C-alpha cells in the first residue's frame, strides 16, 4: 500500500522578529525563492487537499506564524476540516485577546519556544528581547485551557539549564517540554561550531532528563530529541522519506521535510502548479527516496534499514555531498569520519566561537552568493 501523509507542516511565512542562530529555515529565507507568500485561499485549498490525502495533524509554523493577519481564518478552516491544529510560535507580542480568538476558531494546541531559562540568556540567544512576552503567553494559554508545549532548542550555550527549563515548564503547568538538541541544517549548520555541545555537557543533561522523568511521570512529558552527531546510529528521520510527513513553504513549494529544500539535486514542485496529491505521489522530490530501492550499501543489506530508513537524506547531502548515501552519522557509513572530525574539533576548542544571527540582510547576502 502506498503511504499516505499524516502530518503537514505549514510554514506560513519566513518573517520572524527573533534571530535564533539555529533556525531551521533555509539560509536564503529572505531571497527571491520564498518571496511571494501563499494567499489565504491558497492555504485553505492546501489544507483541503491535505485532509483528503489523509493528513490529520497540522502544524502552523514559520518564521513567526502570528505575523499572518489571516491566521484566525486559517485555523477556522483547518478546524472545520477536522485537522488537529498546533500553533508553533515564539509568542513575541502575542496577546491574550488574540489567543482567545484563536481558541474560538478551533486551535487545539499551542507550542511556544523559549531560548533559555532566564531573560538574560533567552534574549541573548533569540537576539530579540522576547522572554517576558513568552512567560506572559505561557500563562495566557493555561488560562484559556490550551494544552501547552514548551519547546527549547538545546546547544552549547544553554544545555546547562536543562533542569531549570524543566522546572519552568512544570511550574507553568505545561503538558510537554520538548528538549530538542540542535539538528545541523539551515542556520544551525552554518553556526555548527558555535552551537555543538561537548560530550560532557550532553551526558550531564541526559542524566538530568532521566531523573526528572522519573520524578514527574505523566505530569509533564519530557521529549528529548537526540543529538545525532553523538549517536552511533542515525535517527529515523521523518519516520522515513515521504512516508508520513510533508512541509509546505511560504511560497508553496512542497518538501518531504523542512530542511529538504537545500538538496539541489532534487526538483521541488509548487502547490500553485500541481495538486498536493500529485506532488505527494509523483513528484521527483517525494518519489526519489521513498521505500528502500534507492539504498546503497551499507544500508541495503542492513537489518536496521526498516528502523532508521537509512537516516537523513539532507544530512547525507550536506555532509557527504550526495543525498543518496547512507546518513554519515551512522557508524557503518564510510563518511562517519566527517562527523567525528566535527565533534572532535568542538571538544578540542577551549572557547565556543561566535555565531551569526538569523537575519534578513545576512540571508539576502547568502542567497545572492547561491
Amino acid at each position: 500500500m502506498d503511504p499516505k501523509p499524516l502530518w503537514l507542516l505549514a510554514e506560513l511565512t519566513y518573517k520572524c522578529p527573533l534571530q535564533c542562530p539555529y533556525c531551521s529555515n533555509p539560509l536564503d529565507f529572505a531571497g527571491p525563492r520564498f518571496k511571494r507568500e501563499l494567499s489565504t485561499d491558497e492555504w485553505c485549498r492546501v489544507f483541503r487537499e491535505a485532509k483528503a490525502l489523509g493528513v490529520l495533524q497540522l502544524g502552523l509554523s514559520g518564521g513567526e506564524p502570528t505575523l499572518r493577519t489571516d491566521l484566525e481564518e486559517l485555523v477556522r478552516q483547518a478546524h472545520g476540516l477536522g485537522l488537529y491544529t498546533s500553533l508553533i510560535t515564539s509568542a513575541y507580542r502575542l496577546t491574550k485577546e488574540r489567543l482567545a480568538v484563536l481558541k474560538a476558531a478551533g486551535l487545539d494546541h499551542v507550542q511556544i519556544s523559549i531560548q533559555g531559562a532566564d531573560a538574560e540568556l533567552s534574549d541573548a540567544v533569540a537576539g530579540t528581547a522576547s522572554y517576558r512576552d513568552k512567560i506572559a503567553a505561557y500563562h495566557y494559554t493555561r488560562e484559556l485551557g490550551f494544552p501547552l508545549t514548551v519547546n527549547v532548542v538545546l546547544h552549547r550555550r544553554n544545555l546547562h539549564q536543562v533542569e531549570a527549563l524543566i522546572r519552568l515548564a512544570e511550574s507553568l503547568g505545561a503538558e510537554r517540554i520538548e528538549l530538542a538538541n540542535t539538528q545541523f541544517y539551515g542556520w544551525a549548520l552554518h553556526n555548527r561550531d558555535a552551537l555543538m555541545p561537548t560530550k560532557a555537557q550532553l551526558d550531564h543533561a541526559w542524566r538530568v532528563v532521566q531523573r526528572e522523568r522519573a520524578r514527574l511521570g505523566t505530569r509533564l512529558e519530557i521529549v528529548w530529541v537526540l543529538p545525532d552527531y553523538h549517536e552511533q546510529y542515525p535517527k529515523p528521520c521523518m519516520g522515513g522519506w515521504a512516508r508520513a510527513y510533508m512541509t509546505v513553504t511560504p511560497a508553496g513549494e512542497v518538501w518531504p521535510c523542512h530542511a529538504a529544500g537545500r538538496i539541489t539535486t532534487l526538483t521541488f514542485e509548487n502547490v500553485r502548479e500541481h495538486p498536493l496529491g500529485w506532488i505527494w505521489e509523483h513528484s521527483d522530490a517525494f518519489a526519489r527516496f521513498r521505500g528502500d530501492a534507492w539504498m546503497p550499501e551499507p544500508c541495503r543489506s542492513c537489518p536496521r534499514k526498516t528502523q532508521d530508513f537509512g537516516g537523513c537524506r539532507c544530512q547525507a547531502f550536506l555532509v557527504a555531498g550526495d543525498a543518496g548515501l547512507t546518513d554519515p552519522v551512522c557508524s557503518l557509513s564510510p563518511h562517519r569520519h566527517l562527523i567525528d572530525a566535527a565533534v572532535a574539533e568542538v571538544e578540542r576548542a577551549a572557547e565556543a566561537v561566535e555565531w551569526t544571527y538569523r537575519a534578513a540582510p545576512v540571508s539576502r547576502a547568502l542567497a545572492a552568493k547561491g
Partner: protein
Amino acid sequence: MTAPGRPTVPRLHQKARLQHDDVRGRDVLLYPEGLVALNPTGVEILQLCDGVRSVADVVATLEQRYGATGVEHDVTAFLDGLAAKGLVTYGP
C-alpha cells in the same frame, strides 16, 4: 459500589480529541504531536467517559448493552493504557 471521593471517573484529557479518519476508515484519538488508532469498542468506551460515569458504570453500561459479562478487565486495560499516555485522567 464506588466509595465517594475516590478518583474512579475517567475523563478524556482536554488535549485529546476523537476524530474520524475518512481516508483510512477508522477513528483516531488526536493529541499534540501524536495519535492513537481506535477500534470501534475503544470509541464506544471513550464516548461513555462523560465525566460522570465511573469505570464501574462504563462497564455496567457496556455489559447491559451487549448482554455480556466480564468486560471489566478489557475496559480497565484500555483506559489505563491511555492514562499512561496522559490522554485519560481519573477524577472524583
